[in-house]
């Protein structure tokens, strides 16, 4: 059988072409191979057929996006009492506490041991009222009608002391609203590992609101749920996790099985996000849904969201805790992430953007384009740099690709943020709190609302 070869010089490849009869040459196969090798090498050398790789290659580490300067978008407005010292606002929240139809601001001043109610008297006009003081280091306040009497009570988390301390000095406190905005404290649990966050939900489905409690502690911490026994503010504790470092708890039906689950971010050396999936009746099954083996990851906050609007509740997540360092400050891996709820208790981790010292992620459609964006504040940026951001906006392009924008460089040391429809126009307004526990002290704030400076383009 005769073999017919043709050489496709353009591709440098050899192919058999039995149908062509023209130019047939009978060759020694070894010589042909040598000739081919020589030719292809020469072609490669002269024509650049080595397909020079692109100058930049993708790596498994997401390249940071170009940060845009959008400081013109929002204007900070001080609300509440004036200050001359170093405010320690550990938490802000938005709720219509007096149910007058105007959302108010609730805040914790951890240095002065005060729980503040900023009653909205007119649009963006607030009157500050101290509704409780004396509970040491209050760090989180949630409004919830715990006794079912139609008014909002306050779930107050007390660390006992904000800075590192392993003593059992935390407490779970409910401030009972008498309906006339007088709040009576009920200490539900005390002398326990320092408490950072409390949320309510009927986990055992008996019609009474129970509690989920994150206790950071220091060397020893816990995560518990507290079954409401239905009388005299009595609760029974069930420990879900015995690790130091739980920062927050979230309560939602993450698994979609009709029962309220609990999620929590655990920092210290563990750096994990847990889901406690409720199988019904308060039977929780623990599961790690995110973790980092970087013991210095700095988990700092979580919140619920639905970024892709698929009806499943996602989790926004920041790592930016800089408290533990020799000098408080940022790390290169600090940033904002989301855990996409894939259903059935499965989550997929996505990086949203780099952000040194990131805290308190909030879902908000800032540019009102119908896509859900994310904002976060920075408690621990490198404030010696003039371009260090204290407030960032990660703009969602609709496909969950996020474009980072700096909304503010100062005030600095923003540790908490919340969003609520303060104007009643159907759009969320941002509220932040300043926590000035370490220098520099030249750009301080206490409580700010961020008003829209320009119409959205």
């Amino acid at each position, binding site marked *: 059988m005769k073999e017919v070869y043709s050489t496709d010089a353009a591709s440098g490849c050899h192919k058999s072409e039995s149908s062509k009869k023209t130019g047939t040459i009978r060759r020694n196969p*070894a*010589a042909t191979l*040598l*000739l081919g*090798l*020589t030719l*292809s*090498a020469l072609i*490669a*050398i002269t024509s650049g057929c*080595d397909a*020079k*790789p*692109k100058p*930049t*290659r993708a*790596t*498994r*580490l997401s*390249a940071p996006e170009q940060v845009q300067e959008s400081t013109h978008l929002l204007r900070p407005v001080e609300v509440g009492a004036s200050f001359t010292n170093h405010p*320690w606002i550990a938490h802000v929240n938005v709720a219509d506490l007096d149910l007058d139809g105007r959302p108010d601001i609730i805040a914790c001043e951890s*240095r*002065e041991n005060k729980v503040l109610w900023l009653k909205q008297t007119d649009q963006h006009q607030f009157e500050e009222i101290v509704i409780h003081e*004396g509970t*040491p280091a209050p760090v989180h306040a949630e409004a919830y009608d715990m006794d079912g009497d139609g008014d909002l009570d306050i779930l107050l988390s007390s660390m*006992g*002391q904000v800075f590192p*301390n392993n*003593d*059992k*000095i935390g407490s779970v406190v409910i401030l009972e609203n008498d309906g006339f905005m007088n709040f009576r404290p009920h200490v539900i649990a005390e*002398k326990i590992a320092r408490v950072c966050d409390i949320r309510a939900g009927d986990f055992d489905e008996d019609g009474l609101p129970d509690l989920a409690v994150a206790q950071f502690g220091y*060397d*020893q911490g*816990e995560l518990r749920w507290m079954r409401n026994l239905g009388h005299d503010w009595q609760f029974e504790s069930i*420990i879900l996790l*015995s*690790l*130091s470092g739980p920062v927050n708890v979230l309560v939602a039906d993450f698994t979609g099985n009709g029962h309220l689950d609990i999620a929590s971010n655990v920092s*210290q*050396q563990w750096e*994990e996000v847990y889901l406690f999936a409720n199988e019904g009746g308060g039977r929780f099954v623990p599961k*790690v*849904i*995110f*973790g*980092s*083996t*970087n*013991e210095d*990851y700095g988990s700092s906050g979580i919140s619920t969201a639905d970024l892709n609007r698929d009806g499943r509740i996602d989790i926004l997540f920041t790592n930016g805790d800089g408290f533990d*360092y*020799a*000098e408080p400050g940022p790390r*290169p*891996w600090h*940033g904002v*992430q989301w855990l996409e709820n894939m259903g059935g208790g499965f989550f997929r*981790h996505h*990086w949203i953007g780099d952000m040194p010292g990131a805290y308190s992620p909030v879902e908000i459609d800032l540019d009102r384009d119908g896509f859900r964006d994310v904002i976060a504040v920075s408690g621990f940026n490198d404030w010696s740099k003039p371009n260090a951001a204290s407030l960032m906006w990660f703009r969602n392009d609709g496909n969950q690709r996020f474009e980072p924008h700096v909304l503010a460089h100062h005030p600095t040391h923003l540790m908490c943020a919340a969003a609520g429809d303060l104007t009643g126009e159907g759009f969320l307004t941002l509220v932040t709190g300043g926590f000035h526990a370490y220098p520099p002290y030249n750009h301080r704030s206490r409580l700010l609302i961020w008003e829209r400076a320009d119409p959205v383009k």
Partner: protein
Amino acid sequence: MSRKSRIASGIILMVAACIGLWLFLYRGSSSLAASYIPATPDMTGWAAPWVTQMKAIESAAEKGSIRDLGDLGLNYHANGFFQEASLVYEGMMRLDPSDPLWPYLYSDILSGFGKLEDAIELLTTTLGLDPTYPTARLRLAEGLQKLNRTDEAEAGFRKCLEDNPKDFHAMIGLARIHMDRKDWDSAEQMLRQATLIRPSLGAPFALLESVYTQSGKPGEAANARIAGTGKPAHEDPPDPWKDHLIDRCQDPYRLRVAAATPRYENDSLAAIALLERAISLAPQDASIHRQLGMLLFRNTQPQAALSHLRKSVKLDPVDPDGWAYLVHVLTESGQSIEAENQTVIGLSHCPEAPGLHLERARQRIASGDYTSAIRSLQTLIRLRPEESVGYVELARAYFASDRIDDGIAQMKKALEVEPGHPVAITTLALHAIESGDQAAARRLLLDAKAQLRVPPSDIQELTTAFSNQFGSQP
């Protein structure tokens, strides 16, 4: 064509083919190596010799030197240019695929940024190339645990223990798996073993306390808590593949941070060396002198410590911490007059420095001038109302000047800002006993017993005082 001519032609063709092939491969690998060289990052402010050295390494890598490309990656990694290092490591895994170092170091970067699934893939590659590197196996097991792949994690930890029965990190990992399964006995066994192997580490004691609490053993829980008090929660496993990166670090801030990590906590000489390197890179940075000064003081080198602390306050006279540390070391070294002088100078630069007001108060108390001491402490409390130290010291000053009620009031305030303060609890308990307030005495004594930082001898003394005063046991 004659036979000779055919042979000659064949040889010429073969040589030409070999040259061509070699050129093809060389050019290919050279351009391949070059394609993994990242764009040079902004190195403004970095040490000029290092920037020059990096340019030379980059130039050599551009010419196809795989060794230099690797060197480039290691330098980027060591100095926090993670994006650049990642690109180089991608290249090295292709160009030098038999070296497990590249996937290992790449996994370190990725896990640092929370990209655990990618990191696990690379750790698996690492172990495929070198199954004997223990830290890779441990990191893999820890990563699997955090991805909720518990069975694989458990197998990984067990393999770590098979290879090294004293691997206390693996014991802690296994104990956590047992705890998640509420298998308290197995968890206890693992953790007790870990405490025996590493008694200086706090984490196994902290977990043991939880295990005992959960399994209804409060006494053992309290003992575990006491045993773990003051011990570092975490300790990195030995990691020579990664640790050598610090030798390439040219960033003073990173060197400072490294010197303060648990890795160097028990190796003060190595930490001192890091800080000395940081100072050589940033000789005018007061904060590094301050950190080195305190480290030298802890390492019983007070004269060297004072030299750096003096330099610190000279470079940054408005840094209150520098003055506070200088005065503290002078006082501890017995140079009380110099300490007082420096306190005055420090306060002239930093009139609102809480640490200096505290030192000033202590100096005044030592000389019996309680009025001045009380003034300084009141200033301290105004500056730091959230800290208990001012109230406790003020109480002591009041007690020393026979103002007992004022002292008790300050101790109560100390207990308000720090509910478990051991000195405040015991002082108030004693006061309640002496003033005949049995209910308060009983409550405070219970608080003192629950506070594990109160020494047992103090509890015993208070119990005896209670019995003597009230004729009954508390």
